[in-house]
C-alpha cells in the first residue's frame, strides 16, 4: 500500500490529510457547544454534563491549534521533500555523467558541482528529519488528546442517562463527538504511517548519499 508511494507524495499527503482533521475538530467544537446549550436547558438534570462539555470544547480548540501548527510544518516538509527529489535527480544525472564520460578531458570540472549538490542534499535530509520529528510529536499530542476524549465521552453517556427527556439528544451528540474522535485518530494514524514510510525512503537515500 502506502510503502510504494514516493516520499514527496507521502509528505504532501500528510498536509492534506491533517487539514481534514482541522475540519473535524471544528465540527466537534460545534457539537460540543450544542451539547452545552442542551445541558443548560436541562439544568439540574444534566448537572454532570457541563464540566464534560467544557473539557471537550477546550480540547477541540487545542486540537485545532495543533492542526494549524502541523499544517505549516507539513507544507514546509513537503516543500523540502520536493526539493530533495530534485536534488537527488540531479545527483543521479551527474553521477551518470561521471560514469559515461569518465574518459572526458574535463570530467573533473564537475566535481565541485557534485560535491555542492551532495552537501545540499545532506542539508535537506537534516531538515526533513527535523520537520518529520516535530510533526510526529504534534501528531502524538493529538492522538493522546483523542484517547482522553474517548474516555470523557463514555462518562458523558453515563451522565446523559440522568438527563431524562434530554437524554436522546445528549446521547446523539456524544455519538457525534465519539465518531469525530475516531475519524481524527484514523487520519492521524494513517498520516503517521505515511510519514514513517517517507522517513524510511529518505533514510535509504541518505545511505546512497554516503556511499
Amino acid at each position, binding site marked *: 500500500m502506502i510503502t510504494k508511494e514516493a516520499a514527496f507524495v507521502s509528505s504532501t499527503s500528510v498536509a492534506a490529510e491533517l487539514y481534514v482533521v482541522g475540519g473535524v475538530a471544528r465540527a466537534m467544537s460545534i457539537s460540543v457547544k450544542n451539547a452545552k446549550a442542551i445541558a443548560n436547558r436541562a439544568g439540574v438534570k444534566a448537572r454532570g454534563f457541563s464540566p464534560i462539555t467544557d473539557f471537550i470544547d477546550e480540547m477541540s480548540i487545542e486540537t485545532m491549534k495543533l492542526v494549524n501548527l502541523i499544517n505549516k510544518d507539513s507544507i514546509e516538509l513537503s516543500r523540502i521533500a520536493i526539493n530533495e527529489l*530534485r*536534488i537527488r*535527480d*540531479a545527483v543521479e*544525472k*551527474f553521477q*551518470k*555523467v561521471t560514469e*559515461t*564520460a569518465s574518459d*572526458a*578531458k*574535463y*570530467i573533473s*570540472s*564537475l566535481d*565541485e*558541482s557534485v560535491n555542492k*549538490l551532495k552537501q545540499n542534499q545532506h542539508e535537506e535530509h537534516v531538515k526533513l528529519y527535523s520537520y518529520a520529528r516535530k510533526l510526529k510529536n504534534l501528531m502524538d499530542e493529538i492522538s493522546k488528546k483523542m484517547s482522553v476524549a474517548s474516555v470523557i465521552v463514555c462518562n458523558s453517556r453515563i451522565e446523559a442517562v440522568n438527563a431524562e427527556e434530554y437524554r436522546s439528544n445528549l446521547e446523539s451528540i456524544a455519538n457525534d463527538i465519539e465518531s469525530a474522535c475516531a475519524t481524527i485518530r484514523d487520519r492521524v494514524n494513517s498520516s503517521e504511517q505515511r510519514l514513517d514510510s517517507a522517513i524510511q525512503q529518505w533514510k535509504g537515500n541518505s545511505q546512497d548519499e554516503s556511499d
Partner: protein
Amino acid sequence: MKATNIYDQRHQWIVFGRDPEKPDGIIDTNQYLIRVDDRALLLDPGGIEIFSSMLSAVLHHVSVDQITDLFASHQDPDIISSLGLWDQALPNGRLHAPWIWEGFIRHFGLNNIQYEPIPDEGGEIHLGSVKLNMVPAHYLHSSGNFHVYDPAAKILMSGDVGAALEPPGADMFVDDFDEHINKMKMFHQRWMPSNRAKNDWVNRVRDLDIEILAPQHGRLFKGENVGRFLDWFEALEVGTAIA
C-alpha cells in the same frame, strides 16, 4: 551523443546530436557549442531527457566553469527544459533568452544562473573576442524567438527554422536538397504560424553572409543549400492548420 566540428578556426563551433541513448518518442535535437579560448556558449542546450548524454559529450570539449553562457532561442521543452540541471552544474552562468519568456522559463528551475532577457529587437553576446548577433525570428515558430549569427564563422543557428523530422542516425549535412524537402515541409507548414513573419525573416536573413544554416532539428545546410532553403521557405505557405 555524436559531436561534430562545423567550424574550427580561432574559435570553434561543435554540434551535438544523433543521441543513440535518447528515449524513443522524443524529437531528436541539435545542440551547439561555441568555444572561444577558455569560454563557451551553449545554444539551445536541450531537454531534460538528453541532459546526461549532452553534459557527458560537452565535458570532452570544455569544463563546466568554462561554460559561461547559455542561449535559448525560445521557451520550448526540447530547447531548454534541462535548465534546472544546468543551473546546478554551472557555477557561474548567464542565460540569454527572449524577455517575453522569462516568467515561463523560470518554471524549469533557475537559482544560480542569471537570466539575461533579450529585447524584441535582438542584441549581441560578447564571448571573449567573438561578437555574436541575436537576430529576431519572432513567430518562427514561437512568439518570442531569436537566432544566433556569427559573422566571423558565417554560421546562423536558426532554431526551429530549417528543421527536419528524420529517422535516427541521419547525416549532419543536407546533400540532396530536393529530397530533403519531404522531411521539412510539414514541419514548417504546421509549426510556423505566420507568412508575414516568415517573409520578414527571409528578407533580413538574405542580407547576412551565411555559409552554414544550422537548425535545431535535422540536417544542416551548407553553401548553395542555404540559398535554396531561403528560396524554398519564402515560397512556402505556412500556418496551414487553419487554411
